[in-house]
């Protein structure tokens, strides 16, 4: 009898916790919608495709910010994911045991550094370095591609992406490492007993089983990149423009909110900023969804390309 009561209390508490998350999300969307309604009503879909942002005449468009946010985050993922998987595979499979804990701890600590510190380091060390070495090198050798064309400033979309990549690498590698460590020795031995090399064992046993964890890690990293404000604001250049070159300065949603929020309290400008927050929320949700789909699709395709001898519906 007593256990029954305990169970129902427990079930109720757990339900309450789950419900609170949903309620919080709904409330947030509601508030954002309510406060941005003037802007949504005035500009409609034009808000998403317009490049104008003119507080004096109260005309607002979000495109350059959306572009900066998405491109910087995706570029960061492009750099951070291979690096993180490399770190995770090394730490979980290849590193000698005495090296595992200290190195793992170091990676975890990197994740805990405040973003303003990354931002400062980015401005004083990374951006000048990129502007003097890597960017000119890329511009010289790959300049025929518009993405790498144009003057280099150091500060800009590329510098912001690199710092973002450095910031999300600890997160992605720490979670991926956990997922890889959870693959049991049995499973690795299945491959090893067939004569798999260490790398083949990773490919055959470890990666497939760790995949859900890796996907989660990447999505978490992406979320952090999309919402990162401080370091991006310090490095992206804060220039509202659409430039094909990744070396050019740009702007991001989070940065413009942070930079302009203090100056306004109400009116159309405020509504426009709130709508930007709403857009950032939707971009995060949308990219998460896309990332999930993409990883699932490519995973299936990779399995098919391996040349399986049996077609799916062979009788």
């Amino acid at each position, binding site marked *: 009898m007593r256990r029954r009561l305990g169970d129902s209390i427990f079930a109720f508490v757990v339900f309450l916790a789950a419900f609170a998350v949903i309620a919080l999300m709904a409330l947030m969307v509601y508030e954002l919608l309510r406060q941005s309604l003037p802007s949504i009503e005035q500009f409609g879909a034009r808000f998403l495709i317009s490049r104008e942002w003119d507080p004096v005449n109260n005309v607002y468009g979000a495109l350059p910010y959306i572009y900066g946010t998405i491109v910087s985050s995706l570029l960061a993922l492009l750099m951070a994911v291979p690096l993180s998987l490399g770190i995770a595979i090394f730490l979980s499979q290849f590193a000698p045991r005495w090296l595992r804990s200290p190195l793992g701890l170091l990676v975890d600590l990197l994740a805990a550094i405040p973003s303003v510190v990354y931002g400062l380091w980015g401005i004083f060390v990374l951006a000048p370095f990129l502007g003097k070495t890597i960017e000119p090198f890329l511009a010289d050798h790959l300049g025929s591609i518009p993405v790498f064309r144009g003057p280099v400033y150091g500060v800009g979309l590329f510098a912001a992406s690199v710092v973002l990549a450095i910031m999300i690498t600890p997160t992605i590698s720490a979670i991926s490492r956990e997922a890889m460590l959870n693959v049991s020795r*049995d499973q690795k*031995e*299945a491959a090893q*007993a*067939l*004569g798999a090399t260490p790398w083949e064992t990773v490919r055959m046993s470890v990666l497939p089983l760790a995949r859900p964890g890796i996907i989660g890690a990447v999505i978490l990293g992406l979320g952090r990149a999309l919402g990162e404000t401080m370091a991006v604001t310090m490095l992206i250049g804060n220039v509202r423009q659409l430039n094909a070159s990744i070396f050019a300065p740009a702007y991001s949603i989070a940065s413009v909110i942070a930079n302009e929020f203090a100056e306004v309290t109400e009116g159309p400008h405020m509504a426009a900023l709130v709508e930007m927050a709403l857009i950032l929320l939707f971009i995060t949700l949308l990219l998460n969804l896309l990332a999930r789909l993409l990883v699932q699709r490519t995973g299936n395709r990779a399995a098919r390309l*391996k040349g399986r001898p*049996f077609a799916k519906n*062979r009788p």
Partner: protein
Amino acid sequence: MAGYIATNNLGASFGGVQAIENITFEIPANKVTAIIGPSGCGKSTFLRCLTRMHELVPGARISGEVVWDGKNIYASEMDATEVRRGIGMVFQKPNPFPLMSVADNVSAGLRLAAGRMSKARIAEIVERSLKLAALWDEVRNKLHKPGGSLSGGQQQRLCIARALAVQPDVILMDEPCSALDPASTQKIEDTIDKLKKSYTFVIVTHNMQQAARVSDFSGFMLSQEMGEPGRMIEYGPTNKIFTTPERKETENYITGRFG
């Protein structure tokens, strides 16, 4: 002679605790050798030492030698992956690749091996291996289903098929029939009987009748006391071990009067 294995004063430990010790043993080619003995005496450990699996356990150590085809597999110039390819192993606990399809599970080793095989050839080997493992009839319609979706006994046979598919020189089986019904057990034993012309088998079993039925030679292992390392107490032709064993411990174990 290929398939012939001899151990010389083989010992193995886990994190400083000796699990087996002083095992000098011969496994004749193209014969079935059974390893019997009470639980915890080191049968699995011994088997794993024969194909360089023991060293994969953190903190594990090995002493002595294992000579296969005239070469010590622990010699520094030997490649562990080559050894494992030549001496296949079926584990005590079934460990199919759970997300990989049944067919891909069976062909996993083939796809590792150097050189490309045609899809038709792979399909042919998959079918033959599954038939040998007495699993074909049950899975022929779900070859694309994940290996993890099979029953425990089916997974055990899937692992047998996976080991057979690469056609190793020696096949080590650690209680290959522990989860199987009598009919499947019978079929696995028939397969072993049929294949021993071209392979060498070592099987660990707790089933005395099975050891008596399928094996030509038997080795009895025992750890004399709790915590003592296991040793090979006696070995010889199966009919001798089972009818006129020389050691009292062997007789007690076989007649069920152990302990």
